[in-house]
């Protein structure tokens, strides 16, 4: 790992100031993605800005019909939160299935959503639940946030502050995990919120995406059988040593069926 300077600001404003002054500075949350990347010398930040001293970034609260989760909230905290379990149990379930216990004890929702790894879990929930991403300068709708592999609408120096999840009537998640890394091979998050159905597919393509044919099928008939007949085209699916594009396309339908069954 190359060396860097280390900053530990206590407010979002101070963190943004440090990042604005140095375009090669990088925020660190749980470090569960950034540190492995730095160890492999995949990038060389001049300084690392530790967000763990910023109290305003931490915590989970219910705000009317929304659950608001601060960026620095760890996967283990979401998995064990009584508030999340009561309002959106599938979101707690999703968090409890990320990586392994030690990863969940450090990794955060802010780091995961900012990183937009195609094989990450959270982006599917953000899209299917039509969440709003709150940053240090604006509010971004889920549909506008995830833009491509490891790419989001956030500008360099912009910090993810919180994610606001509207509470759905129904929600379900299912994923096929890579047995070695535990990352998602293909996953589906299905939700019905205010009568609107959204289906988000993660792991299968370069970026999380909405499966609109499945949304139409579930709008007409909310049942596993309704999505069973919807085939995902293999064209844009990932193909790698873990699975071919055709395999992932097939998994999309299987995972969607399981997600609807899980939602009830």
């Amino acid at each position: 790992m190359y060396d860097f300077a280390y900053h530990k600001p206590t407010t979002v404003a101070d963190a943004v100031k440090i990042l604005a002054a140095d375009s090669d500075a990088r925020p660190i949350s749980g470090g569960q993605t950034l540190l492995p990347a730095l160890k492999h010398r995949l990038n060389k930040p001049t300084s690392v800005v530790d967000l763990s001293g910023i109290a305003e970034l931490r915590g989970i609260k219910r705000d009317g019909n929304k659950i608001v989760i601060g960026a620095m909230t760890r996967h283990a905290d979401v998995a064990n939160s009584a508030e999340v379990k009561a309002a959106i149990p599938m979101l707690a379930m999703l968090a409890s299935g990320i990586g392994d216990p030690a990863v969940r004890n450090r990794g955060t929702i802010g780091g995961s959503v900012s990183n937009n790894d195609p094989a990450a879990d959270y982006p599917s929930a953000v899209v299917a639940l039509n969440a709003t991403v709150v940053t240090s300068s604006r509010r971004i709708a889920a549909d506008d946030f995830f833009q491509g592999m490891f790419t989001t609408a956030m500008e360099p120096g912009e910090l993810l502050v919180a994610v606001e999840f509207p509470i759905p009537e129904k929600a379900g998640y299912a994923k096929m995990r890579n047995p070695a890394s535990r990352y998602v091979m293909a996953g589906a998050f299905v939700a019905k919120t205010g009568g609107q159905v959204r289906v988000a597919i993660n792991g299968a393509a370069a970026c999380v995406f909405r499966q609109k044919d499945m949304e139409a099928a579930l709008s007409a008939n909310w049942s596993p059988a309704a999505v069973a007949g919807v085939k995902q085209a293999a064209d844009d699916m990932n193909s790698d040593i873990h699975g071919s594009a055709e395999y992932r396309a097939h998994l999309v339908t299987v995972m969607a069926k399981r997600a609807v069954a899980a939602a009830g």
Partner: protein
Amino acid sequence: MPQVTLTVNGKTHTVEVEARTLLVELLREKLRLTGTHVGCDTSQCGACVVQMNGDSVKSCTTLALQAEGATVTTIEGLAKADGTLHPMQEAFREYHALQCGFCTPGMVMSAIDLVEKHPQGLNEAEIREGLEGNLCRCTGYHNIVKAIGAAQEVMHGRSATLAPAHAAE
């Protein structure tokens, strides 16, 4: 150089580190606590797991500076001063839950956190799920799972002594 102050196995240290120093490097190279192992550079094997502020964490994927003010327990901090092993260590011994021993410190630290967070008890499937972040190249996991199953009874006070391995067959 930056400094970090932390408490390891009950003793407080202030150490100069580079910003890039990992917690595992601080433990092994500065404090000479070499029980914590490094088995990979991809954050996947769990040989480096320690407890930090009551949670299991991968010390190879934590900066030393991120442990500022933290309370850390490593494998060296488990046995009593008179040498009496922690029930989890005793169970690993009794159940032959190690062969080469390389993964063992991380296994034991993960297992203790797992058991402490599940006072209601864990079944075999839950123990296996809880060990997802710890790889073992030798044992096939079977005896590790049995050891944790037996240790939890002692740790939660449901049994005064460890069930002997032969009785569990």
